[in-house]
């Protein structure tokens, strides 16, 4: 089976979220003997690289100061056109698109070239800027051979909104890579925040406010900031948001207990997770929460929202605590600041219990790469099989 993953950004430029998901899926499928190609873009020179058995085609990314000023969406539209042209040339058996793959011509390719595609909805709410984008998104969902959501709740929401059946295909976690690689030091608990501070959805300011109280209750605790600062090229933020957020930690001693680590790399992340007492993701509108599953796979309890994707992950009090973060307004809610602090202290206590590591690890197994990867392979094989049946019938 020849499978294509078009997505405008990929490693090494962005390594979290959708990009990590594509990496794990493509690696698994290539390991199963499929011919997998990731079609992405690069700010550098166009090239073809190989990540193991996975072919990575880097198309030229269009970047220009005037373009970002006057037609900022042109870059992504140009990528969509370029990727579509590449798909026509390569003719994969199936294309696995994600919400922001921007291959809006996929329904046309499906009709004209009989190229089936799966569409993976990776956000709870898509804030499209134009009417065209809204229509194109809806058209992709309606035309796809199969639609995936990251969680059951997400799938139900898609069906309710668009009236199409929707399967659940969660992001996998490689439990052989993410595992408890070191023994945790519970005397100096580390609270790990692995999300992007420049992304307002991730709740950085809420965490900093809560940190004042956590530090007062547990002065030896360290807050490790292990996320990227600033997102991909479309973001104009250069870290200013991070430094302004730090002002929310009023106590200088509490600020001294903040360790700015940066995003780290894939090889080092299991150690960071395993060393931490708790991984926190106080975000809203989170479709899933991959870092939570990675943390659990490393035996570390988590603190996250009780709604949306995280709410569907943190379902057992033995593996962490939740805070009722429903929407954007909750990120400014003073009461929830206290709730987050309490949840963090609870999770720190939880991390000191010897059975927590096994409980977390066992909970994460339901998203193991083997299980989720096999499910993805089945789903994609089914639509390729349906296409072949169609072709036989017409022949």
């Amino acid at each position, binding site marked *: 089976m020849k499978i294509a993953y078009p997505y405008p950004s990929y490693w*090494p430029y962005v390594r979290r979220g959708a990009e990590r998901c594509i990496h794990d899926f493509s690696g698994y499928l290539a390991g199963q003997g499929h011919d997998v190609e990731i079609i992405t873009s690069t700010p550098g020179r166009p090239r073809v690289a190989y990540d193991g058995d996975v072919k990575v085609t880097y198309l030229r990314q269009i970047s220009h100061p005037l373009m970002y000023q006057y037609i900022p969406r042109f870059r992504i539209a140009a990528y969509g056109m370029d990727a579509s042209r590449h798909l026509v040339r390569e003719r994969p058996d199936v294309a696995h698109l994600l919400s922001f793959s921007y291959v809006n011509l996929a329904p046309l390719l499906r009709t004209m070239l009989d190229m089936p595609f799966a569409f993976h909805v990776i956000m709870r709410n898509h804030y499209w800027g134009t009417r065209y984008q809204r229509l194109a998104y809806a058209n992709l969902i309606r035309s796809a051979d199969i639609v995936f959501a990251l969680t059951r709740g997400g799938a139900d929401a898609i069906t309710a909104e668009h009236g199409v059946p929707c399967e659940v295909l969660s992001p996998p976690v490689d439990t052989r890579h993410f595992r408890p690689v070191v023994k945790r030091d519970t005397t100096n608990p580390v609270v790990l925040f692995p999300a992007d501070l420049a992304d307002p959805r991730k709740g950085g300011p809420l965490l900093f406010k809560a940190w004042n109280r956590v530090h007062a209750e547990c002065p030896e605790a360290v807050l490790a900031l292990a996320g990227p600062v*600033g*997102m991909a*090229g479309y973001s104009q933020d250069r870290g200013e948001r991070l430094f302004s957020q730090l002002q929310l930690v009023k106590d200088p001693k509490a600020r001294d207990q903040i360790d700015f680590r940066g995003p780290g790399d894939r090889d080092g992340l299991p150690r960071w997770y395993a060393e931490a007492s708790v991984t926190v993701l106080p975000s809203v509108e989170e479709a899933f929460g991959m870092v939570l599953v990675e943390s659990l796979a490393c035996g570390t309890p988590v603190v996250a929202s009780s709604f949306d994707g995280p709410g569907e992950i943190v379902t057992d009090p033995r593996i962490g605590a939740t805070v009722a973060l429903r929407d954007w307004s909750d990120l400014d809610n003073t009461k929830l600041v206290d709730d987050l602090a309490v949840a963090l202290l609870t999770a720190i206590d939880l991390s000191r219990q010897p059975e927590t590591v096994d409980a977390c690890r066992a909970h994460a197994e339901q998203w193991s790469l083997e299980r989720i990867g096999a499910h993805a392979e089945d789903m994609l094989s089914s639509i390729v099989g349906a296409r072949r049946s169609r072709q036989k019938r017409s022949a």
Partner: protein
Amino acid sequence: MSATDTIVLDVLDELAVTDTVFHDLAHARPLIARLYAAVTARPQSDRVLLVGPNVALAQALVRDGREVEIWQVLGVAITENLRPNVTRVGELDTLIGAAADGEPGDGRPFDVRPFDVIVLPFVLDAATAEPAVLLSALRDRTAPGGSVIVALRHAGALDARLRALSGRSVLSARADLRHSWSWPSAAPRRLLDTDALRAAARSAGFRMEVAERVVDANATAGVDALPFSRWLRDQVSYAAKRAVPALRDTLVATLTPFSGTRVGDGYGPDLPHVTVVVVGNDPDRALRTVGSLEEQTYPGERVDVQFAAPNAAAANAAVRAARGDVVAFTDDESRPPAGWLESGVRAMGEHTAALAGGVLAEQGSAVPFLALPDRRLRVGDNGLFLAANSFYVRDALLSVGGFDERVDAAWGWDSTAAVRLRAAGYPTTEDESAFVFRMYPFPADRSWIREEFERARDIPVAVRRDPSLRRTALHRRYFAAARTRGFDIALAGVAVAVVRRKPAYAVVGAVPWVRTMIEYVDLWPPAEWRTSVRNVRGIVLRNGVWLAGLTTGSIRARRVVL
């Protein structure tokens, strides 16, 4: 596209950074490539210290298999794969301060091995401490034969000029960002030009080997949204900088430690070993000079003597054979006073590579009428490093090839080493406290005509070798001496008088010359007239010989000295 540019592009493609960071680094690519080329051009660059750093530059050096140590300035982002190379993290000022103290930055054992190359991008102009202090702190961390490569904002950059013209502070030319994906982003505390950097480097014991103005960044970063007017302004500014080197923002300089010169407060109680080279062809006179050395206040066990004929090759051979750290030259006509060596060695001061001492005419010496620069009653402060009295740091002298043997024994051969040292960036100095007395012999026969002619002929050649002699050694830049100037003007007056048929021109033109020789002409009593006529005849003859020599030399060297 150069090979260096291609290497940097390859590195950028490999780096695990977001595309925003990629664009930031690609924006800085011209300077990254320039610094990479500067490092790889060094004869030894296996072990490199990078302060800042810029991850693309660091990655390019690591990729080559170099041992790269990074001192990370707070706020400068770094990729995960380079973290093992980071040995220190801190504010810019404390990072370099720790170098002086030798304190480790973290729990790891402190690696005291010196570096082959230290790269300081935008450090000297941004740190609180003066550049000379920072460089001094790094001097001991630089391996023998190593170098320091600095990049800093130049005071003459287009941006600085425009800000100055519009009444704004030139130091505000760069925003003080707290976070950087590229170079350390601290705002400059000072702007230096090439001379200021050279002076700072000298006082820290470095010579500036290479310095060039470079365009440090592309016109715009691809990912930064810009309105058309701003974009156009950046393009025009970039084009201007490309076209006019004097407007370029950044100075990149390679500094190398002075060979064999000292660090610290000069010679303390441990005076260096000195080799005295006695230059001359007469063994008896040379031994007499050696005899005068026995009265020196300098410890005798730290002095040895070499002999050399008066030419460049022989002098170089003596230097190579010398055992001393310092080589002092004198000649067989000189008599060094008791404190000569001690004064000379102490006067060399910190990092000085060569010193010219004063030469005073000995009592009873002939008083040369037409005193060439090296034959004045009191020689010094004229850019000449005479064999009669000069001091050199032996290693520095050898590192520049010693005296220029192509000059052989021509006039000024003894100053050629100093010219080379200055050209290589070594500080040289003059000090009259280390003086010698020299006997200028009376000419015994007419052989002086040939000698004076040849010496005069060689002066324009020497000026061609070292143009600074015009300023330091010549009279009014074009005349060998005030008396040759007077004679030349007199001749010109005669010529004009002949052409215009007006004797008054000759009279007026002769005034300066007459003033130079009036002391040799006694008009009263009449018994002295005969002597005066003989003196005038001799003066005219000497002026004629000199003019012939200088004219011949000027034609030969294509440099006018009269």
